């Protein structure tokens, strides 16, 4: 009794909310599953769709999280770094496809396209840091945030001016048509490629950050910039490296995205950018594994959530509420775990 008396109003409301969420989720899921409209196969397809979509989010989210780790700033122009890689590589892909080279040598062709995208995104990310953020390193934290928004508009509108505003159709690769059968589960080849590439890239990144000298320097800078500098770490170079790695991953994500959806345009970075930022926050911003987890869970939530939670509850056209479901989960996670799934409280 005495303990109950110490429960503050906020805690009571939070507990009420927790119980309401659990009841809502269980009731919605139960209603959907007992209605039995979708079967095992379809749920599996939806989950795979979610993982593929989530892998792209995760690759972009890593850029947000890495930069936040070393600079404690949100690089809102990162979505446009992603777009820039995809757009630049479009011209290479289109030229290669025009001569029939891409379908004749799909692996070499894809490697070239991927390389161009990654390099151009890296270039933009590094220039962005050098021109827009480094001069403001000692400015109050709100200043680089505003600069980032400005840089985002600058990049997207430059691309609009340079490459035009029409949607561009990415060439289709014959080798990526159709689906694979993995352990009896049919997976579209594009999705398999996206998932595999994302996993490989994330493993390389994890190894790089944990096992190499530069990775160790990055971790040191993210712990404490001044002490790291005293230890002989070149802080500026480390920060540039961080931006470059974010750019590399975003460029790769751009090509993967373009191969799945078959089209690119100047504004394509906006929504994935916002979603990836959400994923980074969901996973715990600043945490690399968290960004991967956040991206995957956001992707799966988006594809499965509306169908699972809402359709059984009799909500008409549940998929229109995809973002509502995804962002509600974000809000709930932040209420109960303010630092995200794997984040830790900020000490500075």
């Amino acid at each position, binding site marked *: 009794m005495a303990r109950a008396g110490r429960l503050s109003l906020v805690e009571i409301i939070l507990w009420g909310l927790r119980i309401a969420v659990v009841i809502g989720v269980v009731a919605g899921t139960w209603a959907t599953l007992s209605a039995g*409209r*979708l*079967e095992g*196969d*379809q749920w599996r*397809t*939806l989950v795979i*769709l*979610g993982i593929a*979509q989530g892998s792209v989010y995760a690759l972009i989210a890593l850029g947000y999280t890495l930069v936040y780790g070393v600079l404690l700033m949100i690089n809102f122009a990162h979505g446009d770094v992603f777009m820039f890689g995809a757009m630049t590589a479009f011209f290479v892909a289109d030229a290669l496809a025009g001569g029939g080279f891409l379908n004749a040598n799909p692996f070499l062709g894809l490697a070239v396209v991927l390389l161009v995208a990654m390099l151009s995104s890296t270039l933009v990310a590094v220039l962005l840091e050098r021109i827009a953020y480094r001069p403001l390193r000692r400015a109050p934290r709100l200043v680089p945030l505003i600069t980032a928004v400005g840089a985002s508009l600058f990049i997207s509108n430059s691309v609009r001016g340079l490459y035009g*505003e*029409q*949607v561009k*159709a990415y060439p289709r690769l014959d080798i990526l048509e159709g*689906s694979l059968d993995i352990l009896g589960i*049919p997976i*579209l080849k594009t999705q398999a490629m996206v998932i595999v590439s994302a996993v490989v890239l994330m493993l390389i990144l994890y190894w790089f950050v944990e096992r190499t000298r530069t990775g160790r320097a990055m971790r040191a800078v993210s712990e404490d910039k001044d002490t790291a500098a005293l230890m002989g770490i070149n802080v500026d170079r480390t920060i540039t490296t961080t931006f470059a790695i974010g750019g590399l991953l975003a460029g790769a994500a751009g090509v993967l*995205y373009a191969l799945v*959806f*078959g*089209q690119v*345009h100047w*504004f394509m970075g906006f*929504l994935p950018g916002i979603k990836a930022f959400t994923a980074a926050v969901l996973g715990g911003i600043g945490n690399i594994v968290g960004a991967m987890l956040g991206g995957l869970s956001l992707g799966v939530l*988006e*594809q*499965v959530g*509306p*169908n699972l939670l809402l*359709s059984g509850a009799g909500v*008409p*056209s549940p*998929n*229109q509420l*995809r*973002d509502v479901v995804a962002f509600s989960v974000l809000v709930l996670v932040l209420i109960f775990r303010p630092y995200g799934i794997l984040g830790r409280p900020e000490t500075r």
Partner: protein
Amino acid sequence: MQKYMRWSAILVVLMLALAACQSGGGAASEEPSAEESAPPASEGAGGEDPSAVCDADEFGCVEVLEGDSIRIASALSITGDTSFLGNDSNFGIEIAIADRGEVAGHEIELVKEDAGCGDAASGQTAAQAIVADPTIVSVIGTTCSRTAVPAMPVLADAGLVMISPSNTAPSLTNPETEDFGGPFYFRTAYNDRVQGAAVAKFACEELGVTTAATIHDGSPYAEQLQQVFVDQFAEQCDGTTTSQEAINVGDTEFRSVLEPIAVDEPELLYFPIFDPEGPLITQQAQDVAGLENTILMGSDGIKDQGFLDTAGDVAEEIGMYFSGPDLSFGGTYESDFLPAYVELSGEDGPIAPYHAHGYDAANIIFDAIEAVGVEDAEGTLFIPKDALREYIAGLTDYAGLTGTLTCDENGDCGAEDVSVAQVVDGEYSEIWTTRDQ
């Protein structure tokens, strides 16, 4: 540093002052002449006194000095994914201007505003830019029904008529809905009550299907068109609609929407939405188990060059259908209009379905100006705004490019012929029309 600050502060103040002078000066010189204080004691060419006409008109007159152009505005979607639709209508308007030469002794100048499509607010922005310019006589727009809804109250307050070449949502001309465009709203496009019924007829009689599913994007156009189709499909041949799904504008992954639809294996999937969601759904439907035998059908919202560029090959391969206005207008359309279009646009042919409707909308406005405009002794043309609206509202049996147009009391003026097309050799080709029924 401080020195810079001081200089930039002075610069900012100067710029503000300059801007204030410009807008203030403009307003001061335009407003009295446009509203009440027309030149005194002058006789119009038609024997009417302009100042009396303008005083009597609820919204006053737009004044065009001798030698000046009459300015009309277009508020269409001219940037972004749906720009094919808006640019197409603009080409129609420009051809109308070139064909007409002079209206009431003045040249015509077209002011192009971007009203967008996906975001309703951009319709309001365009309308505000237009009413801020007192020299504009009338408006042709908008491309999408969604943007017309917030644009109309702004334009109607200023007494500006808007004729849309491509809004088709039924609610815009239905006084019982919130979206109703009001007395200043007209359209040369058909009402989707007509398109939805025609698509249902095509599905029942030509395709012989009994089950269908629909997808809309929450826009008034898509939501209402698919609903009309669903109602008519049930009424005309007892067709069953297995699901009515909806998507978000801006999303790219639609297989999770298609999966639940595929459970019922509908014979027809009708998705009257826009670019780029329409082409994406067309492509992604190919990957979804259960939709292998489903006939895909889109509408005038995606029947444009943008769709052909991104998913035209898939649509051709699977024989996808597109509903839209019947473009076999006959008359001078083939002989005069299309060659002029090709020359003006630099394209091989129309990039979207609503060019001829733009042409008619422009010509109706020109006729109205000639009918109600009054000229004074100095050659200044006065165009009373409310009289202009009344003239268009009373339009009867107007012989336009798109057919014989008569405006009803709610603003529907369009000809009502609907066609169904398929992609053949990379182009839309009409295979069925209500004209033959």
